[in-house]
């Protein structure tokens, strides 16, 4: 049943052997030493400062959507950095390995990377940037912001939320493990068939790639369900569909895509596993397999995934523009329709990733026209942002700069996207670096929107603003890098340079590759600027403290609660009266009105089970990669047993009493009044809510005890 492997295997360790550790690799070995030393240093520091208990109680076992979101974003930023380093390696190799006379070191023919190693680097770069940087960053923001924006106390399934995070973390750990144990796939982040078949990739690299993707798909699906149900079921009273903040709409459309498309990825990879482990013939060239079937299944997911990451970014931009234009978003309904139009059309276009497959003109025409349709709602969005600024009062804060950068990149990405949508043009630039430049333009829209959002929502989560000077410096450096890397890349596309070359045979391309290398240096400077930004902001945190309405011109519901957001979000559920509730209350002078009385609230308990299951999924992925069958079985059984035990115990949660709430609220208001004059005198008021039918079917087994954890994520700064 199982396929014969080239190379050794033993029942205890599977394919794992000492020779699988690349200790003789001149790049990986020093890196490994550095990582181990760094790890030891971190562990020592945590122990020295006695923070293990804090880490365990407040972060590792938490089910608080804000802390989980922060951890998602940390994973995203760390992996963004790793992906960036991979990008730097790719650029350096290409700048170096030009022409037959270019030198080679470390046993490489040209440049400093052997062909197979270079393949691994760009595969890791692509996979990490899409699924371990963009996705966690956006999921993190949705996690933090959506429940607050709809006035919910937490996500619909707090435990599932933690599970999603830890499974994502397991995926990240698995791809990091591939650096030092064995190797990674060399076949591109989306994988070509049949190059990932065991005959053409006999090592464990493809298995790492496959199981990493499976874990990430699982984690994201769980997160998607959670967000959808949260948005449908957990909105505060008065939060009607057409009062939803636009970011919530964007999250809704994005998560519909996630929920519907990720199964296709799981199937595609599952079938690859069947081929590699069971000797099936899904994607082999011979014996009735069909290699393009893989490409098809992958892009059924892959294309919607692109919109899954870009729609929340659009939502972020739609939140930032109005706040710094000091007026409502132009064409709210149109924006909602456009989001759903993009989500819908995303299911009709996947073949444009393989126009050159040769399926014939009818198929290509259909998918070409469908692809161009995406341009319509996207164009509408761009116009609406422009008209949001029209007749406004624009402040060019750092967050606004990042959002504007995203807008201009989107214009360039849209222009080049419309070129790629036409097969007659696509045949010339498909698989060239022009495509690379195009989708980096689009994905950088996300990066720009994310950095804008980091600056925009940072004070909400942590209670103090990031330093404007360094945020702007980082923006300009980053933009300099973007221009220097991607303008030459577009040019190289027009020169016919194809993608994934580890040896560049045409010396005419060399000057441009050197300019791109310069761009990478500028990017590196912006990374340093980001570290300085964090350092300076945390140093000056007391000076930069903010009140509830951090920007003074904010619009949606999250700006009504305290900064940092307390673990219960809103002490009393707000009643929503307007589309831009915070702006409405501010305009009517009732922004400072506090609830007249407090009532007990019910919160979920922390649990370590999600962390354990996440760790076990890592073990499972690792065991499957190395074909350690006993360990696969053991970890799978352990996961199922843990799930059953957790389900048997359940989580009754705990009660925060009205008195405790009142005390915490008083403290928060007092703290805010120190820093924020606009908070005004706390006034008690608002009409009592009456005439609403009581909600039934809350839990039947509520606890009596009350053990609230500390305040929000920012409490310890």
């Amino acid at each position, binding site marked *: 049943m199982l396929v014969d492997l080239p190379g050794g295997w033993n029942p205890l360790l599977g394919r794992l052997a000492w020779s699988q550790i690349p200790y003789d690799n001149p790049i990986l070995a020093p890196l490994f030493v550095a990582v181990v030393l760094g790890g030891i240093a971190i562990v020592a520091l945590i122990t020295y400062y006695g923070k293990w208990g804090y880490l365990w109680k407040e972060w590792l076992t938490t089910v608080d959507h804000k802390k989980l979101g922060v951890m998602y974003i940390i994973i995203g930023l760390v992996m963004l950095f790793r992906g960036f380093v991979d990008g730097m390696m790719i650029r350096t190799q290409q700048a170096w390995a030009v022409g037959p006379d270019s030198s080679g070191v470390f046993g490489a023919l040209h440049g400093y990377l052997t062909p197979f190693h270079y393949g691994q680097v760009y595969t890791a770069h692509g996979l990490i940037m899409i699924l371990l940087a963009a996705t966690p960053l956006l999921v993190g923001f949705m996690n933090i912001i959506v429940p607050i924006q709809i006035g919910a106390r937490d996500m619909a399934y707090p435990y599932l939320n933690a599970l999603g995070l830890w499974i994502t973390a397991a995926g990240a750990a698995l791809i990091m493990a591939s650096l030092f144990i064995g190797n990674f796939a060399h076949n591109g982040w989306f994988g070509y068939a049949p190059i990932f078949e065991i005959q053409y990739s006999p090592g464990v690299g493809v298995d790492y790639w496959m199981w990493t993707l499976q874990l990430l798909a699982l984690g994201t699906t769980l997160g998607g369900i959670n967000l959808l149900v949260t948005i*449908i079921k957990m909105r505060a009273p008065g939060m009607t569909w057409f009062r939803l903040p636009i970011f919530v709409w964007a999250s809704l459309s994005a998560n519909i895509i996630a929920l519907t498309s990720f199964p296709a990825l799981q199937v595609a990879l599952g079938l690859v596993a069947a081929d590699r482990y069971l000797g099936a013939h899904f994607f082999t060239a011979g014996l009735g397999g069909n290699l393009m079937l893989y490409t098809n299944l992958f892009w059924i997911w892959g294309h919607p995934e692109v919109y899954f990451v870009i729609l929340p970014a659009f939502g972020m931009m739609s939140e930032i523009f109005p706040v710094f234009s000091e007026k409502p978003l132009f064409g709210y309904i149109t924006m909602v329709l456009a989001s759903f139009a993009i989500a819908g059309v995303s299911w009709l276009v996947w073949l444009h990733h393989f126009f050159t497959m040769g399926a014939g003109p009818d198929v290509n025409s259909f998918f070409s026209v469908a692809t161009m349709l995406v341009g319509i709602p996207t164009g509408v969005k761009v116009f609406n942002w422009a008209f949001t600024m029209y007749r406004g009062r624009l402040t060019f804060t750092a967050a606004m700069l990042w959002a504007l950068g995203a807008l201009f990149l989107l214009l360039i990405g849209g222009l080049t996207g419309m070129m790629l949508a036409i097969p007659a043009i696509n045949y010339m630039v498909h698989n060239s670096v022009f495509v690379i430049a195009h989708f980096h333009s689009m994905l950088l829209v996300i990066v720009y929107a994310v950095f804008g959002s980091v600056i925009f929502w940072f004070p909400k989560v942590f209670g103090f603003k990031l330093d404007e000077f360094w945020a702007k410096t980082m923006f300009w450096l980053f933009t300099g890098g973007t221009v220097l890397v991607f303008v030459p890349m577009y040019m190289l596309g027009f020169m016919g340079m194809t993608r994934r070359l580890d040896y560049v045979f045409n010396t005419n391309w060399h000057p441009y590759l050197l300019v791109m290398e310069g761009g990478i240096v500028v990017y590196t400077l912006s990374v340093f600027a980001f570290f300085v930004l964090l350092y300076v902001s945390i140093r000056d945190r007391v000076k930069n403290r903010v009140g509830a309405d951090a920007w003074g011109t904010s619009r949606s519901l999250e700006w009504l609660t305290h900064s940092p957001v307390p673990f219960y979000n809103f002490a009393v559920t707000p009643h929503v009266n307007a589309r831009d509730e915070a702006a409405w209350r501010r305009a009517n002078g009732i922004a400072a009105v506090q609830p007249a009385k407090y009532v007990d609230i019910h919160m979920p308990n922390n649990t370590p089970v999600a962390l354990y299951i996440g760790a076990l999924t890592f073990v499972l992925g690792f065991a499957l990669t190395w074909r350690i069958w006993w360990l696969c079985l053991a970890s799978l059984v352990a996961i199922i047993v843990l799930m059953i035990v957790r389900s048997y115990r359940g989580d009754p949660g705990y009660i925060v009493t009205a008195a405790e709430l009142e005390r915490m609220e008083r403290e928060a208001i007092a703290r805010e009044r120190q820093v924020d004059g606009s908070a005004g005198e706390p006034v008690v008021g608002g009409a009592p809510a009456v005439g609403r039918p*009581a909600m039934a*079917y809350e839990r039947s087994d509520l606890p009596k005890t009350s053990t609230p954890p500390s305040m929000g994520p920012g409490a310890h700064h």
Partner: protein
Amino acid sequence: MSQAHHGHQGGHGHADPILHPEVQMSSGRGYFSGFLISTLLMLIATFLVSSHAAPPFGLLLVITVCAGISIIAQIYFLLHIDISEHNIWNTVSLVAFIPLFVLTIGLTWWMFSQLYLRTMPPMPGMH
């Protein structure tokens, strides 16, 4: 959730999950109808196919119709997909998914029939 608000829960207080509408909508007659309809249709399909009672294309059509009716019956009777207040979101999400199922299978089938047509010419030695 406040202990003080038990009083507001009225007759169907939150302490009793059995009274939840999603429990209450179980219906023996519905399940039995679903079972009967789909079993009968499967029986007909199996009989027709195993006895080759009709020309292949007509047969395909007939058993496809059997499958369709049987699925609709099961979705209605077993999964309780209707437009009642408690199921409306289930219905909405199912309706949102069905076009995607159709697109995934339909477009894939179309694109590969075109691909096979062009890239796999009948060759000597092929079956």
